């Protein structure tokens, strides 16, 4: 299993990636700050967002059953999926029942999380991503590297090349309008012929059975309105109690994610209707590890996340490594806490360490997730689940013993002073070597502070 450290090592050497990331994250950071500063009640909004989500998490069972009842009541069908395999089987069967070989998809992290496109491909169904950035990723046989801007690692020159090669367009400029036009021409015919649309959900309202998708292009709305069959795969934590609660989230989300005052395309649908929209609607409620997250008192706040990606844009680690280094559908600070909880620390145990704990993420989170706190909590869980005591644990425990007693601490200080004269100490293996690769080691002074104090002040 490669670690974040290994993947970051290579990502950092990609100058084009560094440049692309730096341009986009810097721009969006400033825009978000301005969009948030416009609202005098932003703090109250984030407090409300966090409180609403906490209420949902505390009564998730009740809200989900209410949602099921109300979706069923308006002609939808609700399916429960324990894990990715379950969800992929359910969606695969539903698609197979229509007999189609092609489905159109709304940008959705949840379907990426379960690997739906690959699961459908195994059943000879092509899933076409219709979000422009997801399309870029799909055409490039690539993976997304940002929650909101999946192709953030590509600039328009790179996108022009990709479109020219994959869409059979020889003459294509790298003007954004031309690139968008090329994508539109490619996608439009597919919207019109696809009998099945597949989406995720930003929110689902328990009281009415209404599902909500928030997007910027309108392509999502094509997928949710044109096909005969609509299938939505939704993480169970996305339920909200009432329509009115969207008042809070539809302010928090666009300002945090795209720095817009209002989201361009907000689609809400409630069941199926005669002569309008899909004839059949299926809602797949996905657990896939979420109930484990819910069981962890400190970790559960992670499930408040509304996938705005503000934490990615302000993260100094993400801004340098990009999303692929996280090896996860959810990159950045939120990925560093969500992925290890969903997939387990054995698979994703390097992610909680992918942070300097600078706290910039917590400052911008619209639902007040204390990401540094959860990171430290997960580090403790990671240390606890290691099979055998390793060098790190043995040294940490030895240091803790030394620090717990002033006498042993002083002995350690004297040892450090003696150790400074060891030649080539910066070439030692282990942590000192990693330090010495790019930094000088500080010289250990002749006299510690406490020795000076004793000498000057007599203790």
């Amino acid at each position: 299993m490669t670690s974040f450290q290994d993947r970051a090592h290579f990502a950092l050497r990609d100058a084009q990636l560094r440049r692309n990331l730096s341009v986009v994250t810097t721009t969006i950071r400033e825009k978000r700050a301005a969009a948030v500063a416009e609202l005098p009640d932003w703090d109250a909004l984030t407090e409300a967002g966090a409180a609403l989500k906490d209420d949902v998490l505390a009564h998730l069972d009740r809200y989900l059953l209410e949602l099921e009842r109300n979706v069923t009541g308006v002609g939808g069908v609700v399916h429960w999926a324990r894990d990715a395999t379950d969800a992929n089987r359910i969606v695969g069967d539903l698609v197979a029942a229509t007999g189609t070989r092609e489905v159109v998809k709304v940008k959705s992290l949840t379907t990426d999380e379960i690997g739906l496109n690959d699961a459908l491909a195994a059943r000879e169904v092509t899933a076409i991503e219709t979000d422009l950035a997801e399309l870029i990723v799909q055409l490039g046989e690539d993976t997304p590297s940002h929650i909101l801007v999946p192709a953030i690692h590509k600039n328009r020159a790179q996108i022009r090349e990709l479109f020219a090669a994959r869409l059979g367009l020889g003459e294509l400029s790298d003007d954004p309008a031309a690139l968008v036009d090329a994508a539109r021409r490619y996608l439009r015919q597919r919207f019109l012929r696809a009998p099945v649309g597949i989406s995720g959900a930003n929110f689902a309202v328990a009281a009415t059975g209404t599902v909500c998708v928030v997007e910027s292009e309108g392509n999502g709305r094509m997928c949710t309105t044109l096909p005969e069959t609509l299938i939505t795969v939704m993480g169970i934590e996305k339920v909200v109690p009432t329509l009115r609660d969207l008042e809070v989230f539809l302010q928090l989300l666009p300002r945090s994610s795209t720095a817009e005052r209002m989201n361009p395309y907000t689609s809400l649908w409630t069941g199926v209707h005669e002569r309008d929209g899909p004839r059949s609607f299926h809602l797949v409620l996905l657990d896939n590890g979420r109930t484990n997250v819910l069981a962890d008192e400190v970790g559960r706040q992670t499930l408040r996340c509304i996938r705005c990606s503000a934490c990615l844009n302000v993260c100094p680690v993400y801004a340098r490594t990009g999303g692929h280094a996280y090896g996860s559908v959810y990159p950045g600070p939120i990925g560093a806490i969500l992925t290890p909880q969903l997939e387990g620390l054995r698979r994703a145990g390097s992610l909680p360490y992918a942070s300097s704990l600078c706290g910039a993420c917590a400052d911008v989170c619209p639902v007040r997730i204390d990401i540094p706190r959860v990171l430290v909590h997960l580090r403790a869980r990671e240390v606890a689940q290691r099979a055998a005591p390793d060098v790190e644990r043995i040294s940490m425990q030895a240091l803790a013993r030394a620090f717990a007693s002033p006498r042993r601490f002083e002995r350690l200080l004297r040892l450090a002073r003696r150790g400074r004269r060891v030649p080539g100490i910066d070439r030692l293996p282990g942590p000192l070597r990693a330090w010495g690769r790019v930094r000088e080691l500080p010289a250990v002074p002749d006299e510690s502070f406490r020795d000076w104090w004793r000498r000057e002040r007599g203790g």
Partner: protein
Amino acid sequence: MAVTTASCRRGARFQPRSVARKPRERPDGSSLNVALFIACFNDALFPSTGRAVVTLLERLGHRIEFPLGQTCCGQMHFNSGYRDEALPLARHFVDVFGGYDVVVSPSASCVGMVREQYPRLAEDADAAFADQVGAVVPSVFELSEFLVDRLGVDDVGAYYPHRVTYHPTCHGLRALRLGDRPLRLLRRVRGIDLIELPDAEECCGFGGTFAVKNADVSAAMLGDKVSCIARTRAEVCTAGDNSCLMHIGGGLARLNAAARTIHLAEILAATEARSGA
């Protein structure tokens, strides 16, 4: 050295705290008995910072005590996932520093550890420890907080004729919310040529064990910080945490860069009569 080693062997050096911590009588309301919490790496690696705090606070008329029983606040252990190992260190800290009116530290991140994390450690521990934490936490101040908020001064009578840029460390900025307190102090230093650091609020990449566990990313962050410092053409980069400065200074030194690092306390302690350490 010989004196120190000999004196270390005397058991009486580490008196029970009931004796050691008792605040002395204040002759008038104007001076405080202040316990210095130096932070372990300052004790070992940056004693000049500790001496500067003593010089500065004594110049302002306060009596400083240095409880010799102090060791380490446990931040490295806590943040690296060694919560069980951090707890005895936190217990030791509240034993040593309990009972003082004011505890001052030239380390924003260690003060952050005490203020933010000790109450969380106490949640899982016994009620007696929780009480001790509750009593100690309000008395612990980062240096610039103590000067600006508790003493109400921003002109400390310093003189430092150098071109200086200030890096706000993450714990100072986002855990303690120090805001512009350090800058208010620096602006009143005579002779100083204070210049703003571009992208100042971006983390320098130290992050404790992050610097070695994710050494490559840490180095990339350091590289950007160092180039921002270079753009200021400052001789000195200052901050309220020697841990971050050790990382930044180590990078500057490796590059033979024009700037060096120095703790805020050492600038504030410098006067015409006594130049900075």
